């Protein structure tokens, strides 16, 4: 299919439809709303399930129900709405069900504003609700990547019977960019054997997220942990640029990774040995490759649209080997290539002198 100018929100919706999503439940919230609106049109056309829920709490629990039947199901929201889904997400994880959730992040905390942000990183990667688990998290940096990762999201969700979250932001959601959509996949007709389809010619199935006996709950948790371990081993994804001979490694995901690339390119043109590492999976965080790179580079600079959240994963992955600098903007302010370039220059300078001079994230944001 040819490329078309597609708005990120709509691209994700259409990509989900082509990946065979059978049910969508959501609630309007800027800057995500076009996704829901596209679903309201297309899902009805295709005679699939679209329902505007009364709230995000209801939406995620409708997703929970639909997921129990073994179909591909999805919801989408933005930061405050995502916060309301925390309990439901934990239940879905506790029931080993596949589903895809899109968070088009906006400025926070609180009502904040409707502008692009990456302030939900912790909430998405660490704790989508209470209890021990991590959802799989995919972070697109372009409309095309949003399309591609949406298809991947459904496959991973089914493969691991796990939640997959697409961590986008207002920039990816609102911009139009040329992208190519995949062909329409047929909707799967068979249902997994664990699905709630009525106990016909088989024992009753039940799907619950509780084990009142401690030993059973622990056994279940160990099972989940084993699965997460497996995912960590096999699903770390990332893109790297100019990393073969770089002294400073810039690290950013999604929009900030994309913008950082411009800065890195300019830096290269000015002869600075700078590379870019852009995680595609935020969980599992691509720590293997990053720790390898840490042996090769002198320092890294994390760029986020937040006060510094992914930076913790970077520090864990690089394990104190190299100094980790930070450049972050918050509350809907988008870090511009020239600002990032400046940060790169400062760090390169400090590299040539002593690394210790690099300010800690908090100092950085406060300065």
């Amino acid at each position: 299919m040819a490329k078309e100018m597609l708005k990120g929100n709509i691209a994700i919706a259409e990509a989900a439809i082509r990946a065979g999503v059978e049910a969508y439940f959501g609630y309007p919230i800027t800057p995500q709303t076009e996704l829901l609106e596209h679903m309201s049109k297309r899902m009805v056309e295709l005679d699939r399930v679209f329902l505007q829920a009364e709230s995000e709490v209801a939406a995620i629990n409708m997703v929970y129900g639909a997921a129990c039947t073994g179909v591909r199901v999805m919801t989408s929201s933005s930061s405050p709405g995502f916060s309301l889904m925390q309990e439901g997400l934990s239940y879905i994880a506790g029931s080993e069900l596949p589903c895809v959730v899109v968070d088009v992040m906006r400025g926070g905390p609180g009502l904040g504003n409707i502008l692009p942000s990456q302030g939900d990183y912790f909430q998405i990667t660490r704790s989508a609700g209470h209890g021990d688990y991590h959802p799989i998290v995919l972070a697109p940096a372009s409309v095309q990547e949003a399309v591609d990762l949406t298809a991947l999201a459904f496959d991973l969700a089914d493969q691991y019977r796990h939640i997959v979250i697409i961590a986008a932001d207002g920039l990816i959601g609102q911009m139009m960019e040329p992208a190519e959509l995949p062909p329409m996949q047929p909707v799967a007709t068979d249902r997994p054997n664990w699905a709630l389809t009525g106990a016909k010619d088989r024992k009753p199935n039940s799907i619950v997220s509780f084990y009142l006996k401690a030993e059973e709950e622990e056994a279940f948790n160990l099972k989940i942990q084993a699965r997460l371990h497996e995912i960590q081993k096999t699903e770390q994804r990332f893109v790297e640029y100019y990393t073969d001979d770089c002294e400073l490694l810039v690290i950013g995901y999604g929009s900030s990774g994309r913008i950082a690339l411009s800065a890195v390119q300019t830096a290269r043109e000015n002869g600075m040995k700078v590379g870019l590492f852009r995680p595609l999976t935020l969980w599992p965080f691509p720590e293997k490759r990053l720790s390898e790179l840490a042996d090769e580079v002198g320092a890294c600079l994390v760029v986020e649209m937040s006060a510094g959240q992914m930076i913790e994963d970077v520090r864990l992955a690089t394990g104190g080997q190299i100094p980790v600098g930070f450049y972050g903007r918050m509350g809907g302010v988008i870090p511009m290539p020239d600002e990032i370039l400046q940060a790169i220059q400062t760090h390169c300078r400090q590299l040539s002198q002593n690394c210790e001079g690099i300010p800690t994230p908090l100092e950085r944001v406060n300065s």
Partner: protein
Amino acid sequence: MMTTTINEASTLVFERPDSLATCNTNYCPGCTHGVAHRLLAEAIDELGLREQTILVSPVGCSVFSYQYFQTDGCVAAHGRAPAMATGIKRVQPDKMVITYQGDGDLASIGMAEIVHAAARGENITTIFVNNAIYGMTGGQMAPTSLPGQKTTSSPLGRNTIMTGYPVRMSELLSTLDGASYIVRRSLHDVANIRKAKKAILTALKVQMNGKGFSMVELLSSCPTNWGLEPVEALHWIETNMIPAFPLGDYKVNEDVRSL
């Protein structure tokens, strides 16, 4: 040992319904959750729905109910059974989806979900077991607790000035056009148990015929948290609950009457 008590001419006139699992329940002695279960199981059997039924259990004393029925089942988050049921029903309109909910679950934390399921005319059936208290967590006040009722979170009795009056869900939901069949019954004696059974049968038929949202509210006992003997508890339903929650048909749409 059975046989000893039965002579040749005898015929079996009452036994456990097939849809009811054989395991013991976790309910306290005399708790009428058990009666509600049996009635629902009988109705499912009589309509031949066991193999197409999906039961959505709540968080509450009936959290285990999914185990007590020989049907597919799941447990919703506290109060969200109607939303979960909606998700199940929308992708499988040919299945029978039933939520079983307590009053804390449905009338307190789950208010928005039940109102909107009814407003949408969601084609599901809700069995609403109203015992005027939070049973599972040890007897706290529910929105359905009666004025003056002593609970572990209203030790001096429910104070209507501070906490208002019992929420009457059947009346409330009856204001919604999407609701097709909303009735209140009681489990305090055999005559009323018979009526409750009929209502459950009708509610399931409403769903079978795609007529929209149906709910049967059942006044039920909680001897443990009411601090009463099982027999006294049944009297308490009759003398205290029924006046506050009048029995009757609150909404029966035209096209449902025929069923």
